Protein backbone atom coordinates (compact mmCIF):
# COMPACT_ATOMS: atom_id res chain seq x y z
CA UNK A 1 0.00 0.00 0.00
CA UNK A 2 1.16 3.50 -0.86
CA UNK A 3 2.70 5.08 2.29
CA UNK A 4 0.81 8.34 1.74
CA UNK A 5 -2.45 6.44 1.63
CA UNK A 6 -1.51 4.55 4.79
CA UNK A 7 -1.01 7.92 6.42
CA UNK A 8 -4.42 9.16 5.30
CA UNK A 9 -6.04 5.95 6.48
CA UNK A 10 -4.33 6.18 9.86
CA UNK A 11 -5.49 9.77 10.16
CA UNK A 12 -9.04 8.74 9.34
CA UNK A 13 -8.99 5.98 11.97
CA UNK A 14 -7.52 8.28 14.61
CA UNK A 15 -10.11 10.96 13.78
CA UNK A 16 -12.85 8.36 14.22
CA UNK A 17 -11.92 7.41 17.75
CA UNK A 18 -10.81 10.88 18.79
CA UNK A 19 -12.88 12.98 21.20
CA UNK A 20 -16.52 12.77 20.06
CA UNK A 21 -17.03 15.90 22.21
CA UNK A 22 -15.37 18.03 19.55
CA UNK A 23 -18.51 19.31 17.83
CA UNK A 24 -16.63 20.95 14.94
CA UNK A 25 -14.94 17.80 13.72
CA UNK A 26 -15.97 16.49 10.29
CA UNK A 27 -16.86 12.79 10.17
CA UNK A 28 -14.25 10.52 8.61
CA UNK A 29 -14.02 9.36 5.03
CA UNK A 30 -15.27 5.80 4.72
CA UNK A 31 -14.66 4.86 1.10
CA UNK A 32 -12.27 2.05 0.17
CA UNK A 33 -11.51 1.39 -3.48
CA UNK A 34 -12.04 -2.04 -5.00
CA UNK A 35 -8.89 -4.13 -5.46
CA UNK A 36 -7.42 -4.22 -8.95
CA UNK A 37 -4.39 -3.38 -11.06
CA UNK A 38 -3.65 0.33 -10.77
CA UNK A 39 -5.48 0.84 -7.48
CA UNK A 40 -2.41 2.18 -5.67
CA UNK A 41 -1.79 4.71 -8.43
CA UNK A 42 -5.41 5.89 -8.23
CA UNK A 43 -5.11 6.24 -4.45
CA UNK A 44 -1.93 8.25 -4.79
CA UNK A 45 -3.03 10.50 -7.64
CA UNK A 46 -6.73 11.13 -6.90
CA UNK A 47 -7.01 11.12 -3.09
CA UNK A 48 -4.52 13.96 -2.87
CA UNK A 49 -7.18 16.48 -3.91
CA UNK A 50 -10.55 14.83 -3.17
CA UNK A 51 -12.18 11.93 -1.39
CA UNK A 52 -12.61 8.70 -3.30
CA UNK A 53 -16.41 8.88 -3.30
CA UNK A 54 -15.93 11.30 -6.20
CA UNK A 55 -15.00 8.12 -8.09
CA UNK A 56 -17.23 5.50 -6.54
CA UNK A 57 -20.50 7.46 -6.89
CA UNK A 58 -20.15 8.01 -10.64
CA UNK A 59 -22.44 6.15 -13.03
CA UNK A 60 -20.69 3.36 -14.95
CA UNK A 61 -18.84 5.58 -17.41
CA UNK A 62 -17.23 4.18 -20.56
CA UNK A 63 -13.44 4.42 -20.80
CA UNK A 64 -13.69 7.65 -22.83
CA UNK A 65 -15.63 9.20 -19.93
CA UNK A 66 -12.91 8.28 -17.40
CA UNK A 67 -10.18 9.52 -19.74
CA UNK A 68 -12.06 12.82 -20.10
CA UNK A 69 -12.28 13.09 -16.28
CA UNK A 70 -8.56 12.44 -15.85
CA UNK A 71 -7.72 14.98 -18.56
CA UNK A 72 -9.97 17.54 -16.86
CA UNK A 73 -8.14 16.99 -13.56
CA UNK A 74 -4.81 17.50 -15.35
CA UNK A 75 -5.63 20.43 -17.59
CA UNK A 76 -8.20 22.38 -15.54
CA UNK A 77 -7.11 21.60 -11.99
CA UNK A 78 -3.41 21.04 -12.60
CA UNK A 79 -3.34 17.53 -11.10
CA UNK A 80 0.25 16.30 -11.38
CA UNK A 81 -0.72 13.03 -13.08
CA UNK A 82 2.19 11.90 -15.27
CA UNK A 83 1.25 11.22 -18.91
CA UNK A 84 2.37 7.61 -18.61
CA UNK A 85 -0.05 7.02 -15.69
CA UNK A 86 -3.19 8.08 -17.57
CA UNK A 87 -3.77 4.74 -19.29
CA UNK A 88 -3.29 2.78 -16.06
CA UNK A 89 -5.72 5.05 -14.19
CA UNK A 90 -8.29 4.89 -16.97
CA UNK A 91 -8.05 1.09 -17.19
CA UNK A 92 -8.53 0.64 -13.44
CA UNK A 93 -11.46 3.08 -13.29
CA UNK A 94 -13.17 1.53 -16.32
CA UNK A 95 -12.60 -2.01 -15.08
CA UNK A 96 -13.78 -1.39 -11.49
CA UNK A 97 -16.26 1.50 -11.78
CA UNK A 98 -17.03 1.82 -15.45
CA UNK A 99 -18.61 0.21 -18.40
CA UNK A 100 -15.99 -2.03 -20.02
CA UNK A 101 -16.24 -2.21 -23.84
CA UNK A 102 -18.57 -4.99 -25.04
CA UNK A 103 -16.67 -8.24 -25.62
CA UNK A 104 -16.74 -9.40 -29.26
Amino acid at each position, binding site marked *: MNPRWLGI*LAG*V*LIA*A*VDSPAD*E*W*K*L*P*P*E*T*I*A*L*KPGKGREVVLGQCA*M*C*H*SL*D*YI*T*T*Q*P*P*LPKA*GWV*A*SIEKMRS*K*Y*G*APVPTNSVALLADYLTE*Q*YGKPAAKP
Partner: protein
Amino acid sequence: MRVRDLNRRRFIRVAAGVAGGMAAVPGLIANETYEMPFENGSRELVRYPEKRPLIRLTSRPPQLETPMAVFNEGILTPNDAFFVRYHLAGSPPSRDVLTPDAFRLQVVGAVRKPIEISIADLLRRFEVTEVVAVNQCSGNGRGLFTPRVGGGQMGNGAMGCARWKGVRLVDVLKAAELEPAAKQVLFDGMDKPVTATIPDFVKSIELDQALDPDLLLATEMNGQPLPWLNGFPLRLVVPGHYGTYWIKHLHQITVVDSSYKGYWMDPAYRIPDDPCAHIEPGSKPRRTVPISRFNVRSFITSLAEGVQVRSGEKQRVRGIAFDGGSGIREVTFSDDGGKTWRGAELGRSEGRFGFREWTVDWKPAGPGERTLWAKATNRLGESQPLEALWNPAGYMRNVVEPVKVRIV
Protein backbone atom coordinates in the same frame (compact mmCIF):
# COMPACT_ATOMS: atom_id res chain seq x y z
CA MET B 1 -37.20 7.40 -20.33
CA ARG B 2 -37.24 5.59 -17.05
CA VAL B 3 -39.96 7.20 -15.01
CA ARG B 4 -39.26 6.01 -11.51
CA ASP B 5 -38.68 8.21 -8.59
CA LEU B 6 -37.53 5.90 -5.90
CA ASN B 7 -36.09 8.98 -4.24
CA ARG B 8 -38.75 8.73 -1.65
CA ARG B 9 -38.47 5.02 -1.17
CA ARG B 10 -36.17 4.68 1.74
CA PHE B 11 -34.36 1.45 2.20
CA ILE B 12 -32.40 1.89 5.35
CA ARG B 13 -29.83 -0.70 6.10
CA VAL B 14 -26.41 -0.99 7.58
CA ALA B 15 -23.59 -0.22 5.19
CA ALA B 16 -21.44 -3.29 4.97
CA GLY B 17 -19.71 -3.64 1.67
CA VAL B 18 -22.69 -2.53 -0.37
CA ALA B 19 -22.73 -2.28 -4.14
CA GLY B 20 -20.71 0.32 -5.97
CA GLY B 21 -17.50 -0.17 -4.07
CA MET B 22 -18.71 1.57 -0.95
CA ALA B 23 -17.08 -0.41 1.81
CA ALA B 24 -16.93 0.49 5.44
CA VAL B 25 -13.45 1.09 6.80
CA PRO B 26 -12.88 -1.55 9.50
CA GLY B 27 -13.19 -0.26 13.02
CA LEU B 28 -15.59 2.55 12.16
CA ILE B 29 -19.19 2.66 13.24
CA ALA B 30 -21.18 1.82 10.13
CA ASN B 31 -23.55 4.49 8.88
CA GLU B 32 -27.07 3.78 7.69
CA THR B 33 -27.59 3.94 3.97
CA TYR B 34 -30.09 5.60 1.68
CA GLU B 35 -30.89 4.25 -1.76
CA MET B 36 -31.10 6.79 -4.55
CA PRO B 37 -33.41 5.90 -7.44
CA PHE B 38 -30.64 5.25 -9.97
CA GLU B 39 -27.83 2.80 -10.68
CA ASN B 40 -24.92 2.97 -8.20
CA GLY B 41 -27.04 5.09 -5.88
CA SER B 42 -26.19 3.68 -2.43
CA ARG B 43 -25.33 6.53 -0.10
CA GLU B 44 -24.42 6.76 3.56
CA LEU B 45 -26.52 8.83 5.94
CA VAL B 46 -23.94 10.77 7.94
CA ARG B 47 -24.25 13.28 10.75
CA TYR B 48 -22.17 16.44 10.32
CA PRO B 49 -21.77 19.34 12.77
CA GLU B 50 -25.12 21.16 13.21
CA LYS B 51 -26.80 18.65 10.88
CA ARG B 52 -29.08 15.66 11.30
CA PRO B 53 -27.92 12.56 9.36
CA LEU B 54 -27.99 13.57 5.67
CA ILE B 55 -27.28 11.75 2.42
CA ARG B 56 -23.54 11.99 1.88
CA LEU B 57 -22.42 12.24 -1.73
CA THR B 58 -18.79 13.10 -1.01
CA SER B 59 -16.72 13.68 2.11
CA ARG B 60 -13.74 15.82 0.99
CA PRO B 61 -15.08 18.37 0.40
CA PRO B 62 -18.44 17.57 2.03
CA GLN B 63 -21.51 17.34 -0.19
CA LEU B 64 -24.72 16.41 1.62
CA GLU B 65 -28.21 15.97 0.23
CA THR B 66 -31.57 16.35 1.98
CA PRO B 67 -33.84 13.27 2.14
CA MET B 68 -37.06 14.00 0.20
CA ALA B 69 -39.24 13.30 3.27
CA VAL B 70 -37.93 16.53 4.83
CA PHE B 71 -39.75 18.61 2.23
CA ASN B 72 -43.07 17.42 3.65
CA GLU B 73 -42.22 19.01 7.03
CA GLY B 74 -43.09 22.51 5.78
CA ILE B 75 -42.03 25.10 3.23
CA LEU B 76 -39.00 26.19 5.25
CA THR B 77 -36.28 23.55 5.19
CA PRO B 78 -34.76 23.18 8.67
CA ASN B 79 -31.16 24.35 8.94
CA ASP B 80 -30.04 20.96 10.21
CA ALA B 81 -31.44 19.29 7.08
CA PHE B 82 -30.36 21.90 4.52
CA PHE B 83 -28.15 20.53 1.72
CA VAL B 84 -24.41 21.21 1.56
CA ARG B 85 -22.33 21.66 -1.55
CA TYR B 86 -18.65 22.60 -1.74
CA HIS B 87 -16.19 22.51 -4.63
CA LEU B 88 -12.74 22.78 -3.08
CA ALA B 89 -11.23 20.15 -0.83
CA GLY B 90 -10.05 22.81 1.63
CA SER B 91 -13.68 23.23 2.70
CA PRO B 92 -15.26 24.22 4.93
CA PRO B 93 -12.80 26.85 6.18
CA SER B 94 -11.64 26.26 9.74
CA ARG B 95 -13.84 27.77 12.46
CA ASP B 96 -10.85 29.86 13.66
CA VAL B 97 -10.88 32.12 10.60
CA LEU B 98 -14.64 32.65 10.79
CA THR B 99 -14.90 34.04 14.33
CA PRO B 100 -16.21 37.61 14.86
CA ASP B 101 -12.69 38.76 15.74
CA ALA B 102 -11.03 37.18 12.73
CA PHE B 103 -13.63 37.60 9.99
CA ARG B 104 -13.87 40.71 7.81
CA LEU B 105 -15.79 41.41 4.60
CA GLN B 106 -13.84 43.42 2.03
CA VAL B 107 -15.28 45.43 -0.86
CA VAL B 108 -12.47 46.37 -3.24
CA GLY B 109 -11.69 46.99 -6.92
CA ALA B 110 -13.37 49.68 -9.02
CA VAL B 111 -14.76 51.56 -6.00
CA ARG B 112 -13.87 54.96 -4.57
CA LYS B 113 -14.25 53.93 -0.93
CA PRO B 114 -13.10 50.37 -0.29
CA ILE B 115 -14.74 48.73 2.70
CA GLU B 116 -13.38 46.34 5.31
CA ILE B 117 -15.99 45.53 7.89
CA SER B 118 -16.86 43.05 10.64
CA ILE B 119 -20.19 41.24 10.67
CA ALA B 120 -21.36 43.26 13.69
CA ASP B 121 -20.55 46.55 11.95
CA LEU B 122 -22.13 45.39 8.70
CA LEU B 123 -25.41 44.76 10.54
CA ARG B 124 -25.15 48.10 12.38
CA ARG B 125 -24.28 50.19 9.34
CA PHE B 126 -26.81 48.82 6.82
CA GLU B 127 -30.54 48.14 6.97
CA VAL B 128 -31.32 44.53 7.85
CA THR B 129 -33.98 42.77 5.79
CA GLU B 130 -35.32 39.27 5.03
CA VAL B 131 -36.33 37.16 2.07
CA VAL B 132 -37.77 33.65 1.85
CA ALA B 133 -35.96 32.00 -1.03
CA VAL B 134 -35.14 28.61 -2.48
CA ASN B 135 -31.53 27.66 -2.98
CA GLN B 136 -31.01 24.85 -5.45
CA CYS B 137 -27.90 23.23 -6.84
CA SER B 138 -27.48 23.57 -10.63
CA GLY B 139 -27.11 19.80 -10.81
CA ASN B 140 -30.05 18.92 -8.57
CA GLY B 141 -31.43 15.65 -9.98
CA ARG B 142 -28.33 14.95 -12.11
CA GLY B 143 -28.34 11.30 -11.09
CA LEU B 144 -31.76 10.94 -12.73
CA PHE B 145 -30.52 12.01 -16.17
CA THR B 146 -30.94 9.52 -19.00
CA PRO B 147 -28.47 8.94 -20.51
CA ARG B 148 -26.40 9.42 -17.35
CA VAL B 149 -23.81 12.19 -17.23
CA GLY B 150 -20.68 12.54 -15.08
CA GLY B 151 -20.55 14.90 -12.10
CA GLY B 152 -22.12 14.90 -8.64
CA GLN B 153 -24.78 12.17 -8.71
CA MET B 154 -27.60 13.76 -6.73
CA GLY B 155 -31.27 12.95 -6.49
CA ASN B 156 -33.65 15.87 -6.06
CA GLY B 157 -32.56 16.73 -2.52
CA ALA B 158 -29.95 19.37 -3.38
CA MET B 159 -32.49 22.12 -2.76
CA GLY B 160 -34.01 23.88 0.20
CA CYS B 161 -36.01 26.95 1.15
CA ALA B 162 -35.10 29.26 4.03
CA ARG B 163 -35.83 32.68 5.44
CA TRP B 164 -32.56 34.55 4.83
CA LYS B 165 -31.72 37.63 6.86
CA GLY B 166 -29.01 40.15 6.16
CA VAL B 167 -28.22 43.41 4.39
CA ARG B 168 -28.81 44.34 0.77
CA LEU B 169 -25.80 43.94 -1.50
CA VAL B 170 -26.83 47.13 -3.35
CA ASP B 171 -26.56 49.20 -0.15
CA VAL B 172 -23.02 47.95 0.49
CA LEU B 173 -21.95 48.56 -3.13
CA LYS B 174 -23.38 52.09 -3.02
CA ALA B 175 -21.51 52.81 0.21
CA ALA B 176 -18.30 51.76 -1.54
CA GLU B 177 -19.08 54.24 -4.35
CA LEU B 178 -18.70 52.42 -7.66
CA GLU B 179 -16.39 53.82 -10.30
CA PRO B 180 -18.20 54.69 -13.56
CA ALA B 181 -16.30 51.90 -15.35
CA ALA B 182 -17.73 49.18 -13.05
CA LYS B 183 -19.06 46.29 -15.15
CA GLN B 184 -19.22 43.16 -13.01
CA VAL B 185 -18.99 42.17 -9.36
CA LEU B 186 -16.92 39.16 -8.22
CA PHE B 187 -17.59 37.12 -5.10
CA ASP B 188 -15.03 35.00 -3.27
CA GLY B 189 -15.45 32.89 -0.15
CA MET B 190 -12.92 31.64 2.37
CA ASP B 191 -13.03 28.06 1.12
CA LYS B 192 -9.78 27.54 -0.73
CA PRO B 193 -8.25 25.02 -3.14
CA VAL B 194 -5.72 22.50 -1.81
CA THR B 195 -3.15 23.31 -4.51
CA ALA B 196 -2.24 26.55 -6.27
CA THR B 197 -3.13 24.99 -9.63
CA ILE B 198 -6.82 24.52 -8.77
CA PRO B 199 -8.91 27.60 -9.67
CA ASP B 200 -10.32 29.38 -6.63
CA PHE B 201 -14.13 29.33 -6.51
CA VAL B 202 -15.01 32.86 -7.64
CA LYS B 203 -18.29 33.82 -9.32
CA SER B 204 -19.20 36.95 -11.24
CA ILE B 205 -22.50 38.79 -11.54
CA GLU B 206 -23.28 41.55 -14.04
CA LEU B 207 -23.49 44.96 -12.38
CA ASP B 208 -27.18 45.59 -13.14
CA GLN B 209 -28.06 42.29 -11.48
CA ALA B 210 -25.78 42.99 -8.52
CA LEU B 211 -27.70 46.23 -7.92
CA ASP B 212 -31.02 44.34 -7.69
CA PRO B 213 -32.33 44.92 -4.14
CA ASP B 214 -33.35 41.23 -3.91
CA LEU B 215 -29.72 40.17 -3.45
CA LEU B 216 -28.65 39.89 0.19
CA LEU B 217 -25.49 39.41 2.16
CA ALA B 218 -27.04 37.01 4.66
CA THR B 219 -25.91 36.24 8.18
CA GLU B 220 -28.94 34.21 9.28
CA MET B 221 -31.19 31.52 7.94
CA ASN B 222 -34.49 30.62 9.59
CA GLY B 223 -33.75 32.87 12.57
CA GLN B 224 -30.36 31.32 13.39
CA PRO B 225 -26.80 32.17 12.38
CA LEU B 226 -25.85 30.37 9.18
CA PRO B 227 -24.65 26.84 9.92
CA TRP B 228 -20.92 26.36 9.40
CA LEU B 229 -21.56 24.15 6.36
CA ASN B 230 -24.01 26.64 4.82
CA GLY B 231 -21.59 29.57 4.77
CA PHE B 232 -21.13 30.95 8.30
CA PRO B 233 -20.80 33.84 8.99
CA LEU B 234 -21.87 35.44 5.66
CA ARG B 235 -23.16 34.23 2.31
CA LEU B 236 -24.50 35.78 -0.84
CA VAL B 237 -28.21 35.13 -1.44
CA VAL B 238 -29.32 35.41 -5.07
CA PRO B 239 -33.07 34.68 -4.99
CA GLY B 240 -34.36 32.74 -8.01
CA HIS B 241 -30.85 31.81 -9.12
CA TYR B 242 -28.89 28.57 -8.83
CA GLY B 243 -26.77 27.94 -5.77
CA THR B 244 -23.48 28.30 -7.66
CA TYR B 245 -23.81 32.09 -7.16
CA TRP B 246 -24.66 31.88 -3.44
CA ILE B 247 -21.00 32.18 -2.34
CA LYS B 248 -20.46 30.87 1.21
CA HIS B 249 -18.08 32.31 3.83
CA LEU B 250 -18.12 35.40 1.58
CA HIS B 251 -15.14 37.59 2.46
CA GLN B 252 -14.26 39.48 -0.69
CA ILE B 253 -16.39 41.44 -3.14
CA THR B 254 -14.40 42.84 -6.03
CA VAL B 255 -15.88 45.30 -8.51
CA VAL B 256 -14.25 44.97 -11.96
CA ASP B 257 -14.41 46.97 -15.18
CA SER B 258 -14.17 43.92 -17.47
CA SER B 259 -15.80 40.53 -18.00
CA TYR B 260 -14.41 37.95 -15.59
CA LYS B 261 -13.15 34.81 -17.34
CA GLY B 262 -12.43 32.54 -14.38
CA TYR B 263 -12.84 28.76 -14.62
CA TRP B 264 -16.02 28.60 -12.52
CA MET B 265 -17.78 30.99 -14.95
CA ASP B 266 -16.32 29.50 -18.11
CA PRO B 267 -16.17 26.62 -18.95
CA ALA B 268 -17.84 25.51 -15.67
CA TYR B 269 -21.52 26.11 -14.88
CA ARG B 270 -22.64 26.76 -18.42
CA ILE B 271 -25.78 25.64 -20.20
CA PRO B 272 -26.66 25.33 -23.89
CA ASP B 273 -27.72 28.72 -25.26
CA ASP B 274 -31.26 27.57 -25.87
CA PRO B 275 -34.53 28.57 -24.15
CA CYS B 276 -34.80 25.19 -22.36
CA ALA B 277 -31.09 24.43 -21.84
CA HIS B 278 -31.84 21.28 -23.83
CA ILE B 279 -29.92 19.50 -26.57
CA GLU B 280 -30.15 16.08 -28.21
CA PRO B 281 -28.90 13.51 -25.66
CA GLY B 282 -25.27 12.64 -26.28
CA SER B 283 -24.58 15.71 -28.42
CA LYS B 284 -22.52 18.81 -27.62
CA PRO B 285 -23.91 22.35 -27.37
CA ARG B 286 -22.82 24.78 -30.12
CA ARG B 287 -22.89 27.81 -27.84
CA THR B 288 -23.15 28.08 -24.07
CA VAL B 289 -24.10 30.78 -21.56
CA PRO B 290 -23.70 30.94 -17.76
CA ILE B 291 -26.46 29.15 -15.87
CA SER B 292 -28.77 31.67 -14.17
CA ARG B 293 -32.43 31.39 -13.09
CA PHE B 294 -34.33 28.33 -11.88
CA ASN B 295 -36.91 26.84 -14.19
CA VAL B 296 -40.29 25.68 -12.78
CA ARG B 297 -40.38 22.61 -10.56
CA SER B 298 -42.87 20.80 -8.36
CA PHE B 299 -42.85 17.73 -6.14
CA ILE B 300 -45.38 15.55 -4.38
CA THR B 301 -44.11 15.36 -0.79
CA SER B 302 -46.86 13.59 1.18
CA LEU B 303 -46.69 10.30 -0.71
CA ALA B 304 -43.45 8.43 -1.25
CA GLU B 305 -42.71 6.21 -4.22
CA GLY B 306 -44.03 2.71 -3.65
CA VAL B 307 -46.32 3.42 -0.68
CA GLN B 308 -49.67 1.68 -0.22
CA VAL B 309 -52.89 3.67 0.02
CA ARG B 310 -56.41 2.40 0.75
CA SER B 311 -58.95 2.39 -2.05
CA GLY B 312 -61.88 4.73 -1.42
CA GLU B 313 -60.20 6.49 1.51
CA LYS B 314 -60.05 10.19 0.75
CA GLN B 315 -56.76 11.95 1.57
CA ARG B 316 -55.12 15.33 1.10
CA VAL B 317 -52.10 15.06 -1.20
CA ARG B 318 -49.50 17.71 -0.54
CA GLY B 319 -46.42 19.04 -2.25
CA ILE B 320 -44.23 22.03 -3.09
CA ALA B 321 -43.59 24.13 -6.20
CA PHE B 322 -41.18 26.96 -7.04
CA ASP B 323 -39.63 28.86 -9.91
CA GLY B 324 -37.02 31.53 -10.64
CA GLY B 325 -38.99 34.35 -9.07
CA SER B 326 -42.08 35.16 -11.12
CA GLY B 327 -44.09 33.11 -8.61
CA ILE B 328 -46.25 30.00 -8.98
CA ARG B 329 -49.61 30.59 -10.66
CA GLU B 330 -51.02 27.07 -10.74
CA VAL B 331 -50.32 23.47 -9.79
CA THR B 332 -52.26 20.64 -11.40
CA PHE B 333 -52.45 17.03 -10.26
CA SER B 334 -53.01 13.82 -12.20
CA ASP B 335 -53.65 10.32 -10.84
CA ASP B 336 -53.79 8.63 -14.23
CA GLY B 337 -50.30 9.26 -15.58
CA GLY B 338 -51.22 12.58 -17.16
CA LYS B 339 -54.45 11.73 -19.00
CA THR B 340 -56.52 14.08 -16.84
CA TRP B 341 -55.42 16.96 -14.65
CA ARG B 342 -57.14 19.01 -11.98
CA GLY B 343 -56.16 22.11 -10.07
CA ALA B 344 -54.55 21.98 -6.64
CA GLU B 345 -55.09 24.59 -3.95
CA LEU B 346 -52.09 26.84 -3.36
CA GLY B 347 -50.99 27.53 0.22
CA ARG B 348 -50.02 30.89 1.68
CA SER B 349 -47.33 32.68 -0.32
CA GLU B 350 -44.09 33.52 1.51
CA GLY B 351 -43.00 35.61 -1.48
CA ARG B 352 -42.27 34.81 -5.07
CA PHE B 353 -38.89 33.14 -4.37
CA GLY B 354 -39.96 30.50 -1.85
CA PHE B 355 -41.42 27.02 -1.93
CA ARG B 356 -45.19 27.28 -2.43
CA GLU B 357 -47.20 24.56 -0.76
CA TRP B 358 -50.05 22.99 -2.70
CA THR B 359 -52.72 20.47 -1.66
CA VAL B 360 -55.41 18.49 -3.44
CA ASP B 361 -58.10 16.06 -2.28
CA TRP B 362 -57.65 12.62 -3.71
CA LYS B 363 -59.77 9.49 -3.42
CA PRO B 364 -57.77 6.49 -4.60
CA ALA B 365 -59.82 4.13 -6.75
CA GLY B 366 -58.24 0.71 -6.90
CA PRO B 367 -56.85 -1.77 -6.54
CA GLY B 368 -53.68 -1.48 -8.59
CA GLU B 369 -50.71 0.74 -9.30
CA ARG B 370 -51.25 4.40 -10.03
CA THR B 371 -48.80 7.05 -11.18
CA LEU B 372 -49.31 10.45 -9.59
CA TRP B 373 -48.03 13.59 -11.24
CA ALA B 374 -47.89 17.22 -10.16
CA LYS B 375 -47.14 19.99 -12.65
CA ALA B 376 -46.59 23.66 -11.84
CA THR B 377 -46.95 26.76 -14.03
CA ASN B 378 -45.46 30.12 -13.13
CA ARG B 379 -46.84 33.62 -13.68
CA LEU B 380 -44.96 33.86 -16.98
CA GLY B 381 -46.87 30.80 -18.24
CA GLU B 382 -43.76 28.58 -18.09
CA SER B 383 -44.37 25.01 -16.98
CA GLN B 384 -42.66 21.62 -16.69
CA PRO B 385 -42.04 19.14 -19.52
CA LEU B 386 -43.44 15.60 -19.39
CA GLU B 387 -40.28 14.29 -21.07
CA ALA B 388 -36.98 15.14 -19.40
CA LEU B 389 -34.72 17.66 -21.08
CA TRP B 390 -31.02 16.80 -21.40
CA ASN B 391 -27.71 18.65 -21.38
CA PRO B 392 -24.18 17.28 -20.96
CA ALA B 393 -23.53 18.86 -17.55
CA GLY B 394 -26.78 17.53 -16.04
CA TYR B 395 -28.17 20.92 -15.07
CA MET B 396 -31.69 22.32 -14.66
CA ARG B 397 -33.71 19.12 -14.43
CA ASN B 398 -37.40 20.04 -14.20
CA VAL B 399 -39.37 17.19 -15.72
CA VAL B 400 -42.70 16.32 -14.04
CA GLU B 401 -41.60 13.79 -11.39
CA PRO B 402 -43.93 10.77 -11.15
CA VAL B 403 -44.75 9.02 -7.89
CA LYS B 404 -46.02 5.48 -8.25
CA VAL B 405 -48.30 4.27 -5.44
CA ARG B 406 -50.13 0.99 -4.85
CA ILE B 407 -53.85 1.15 -4.11
CA VAL B 408 -55.11 -1.75 -2.00
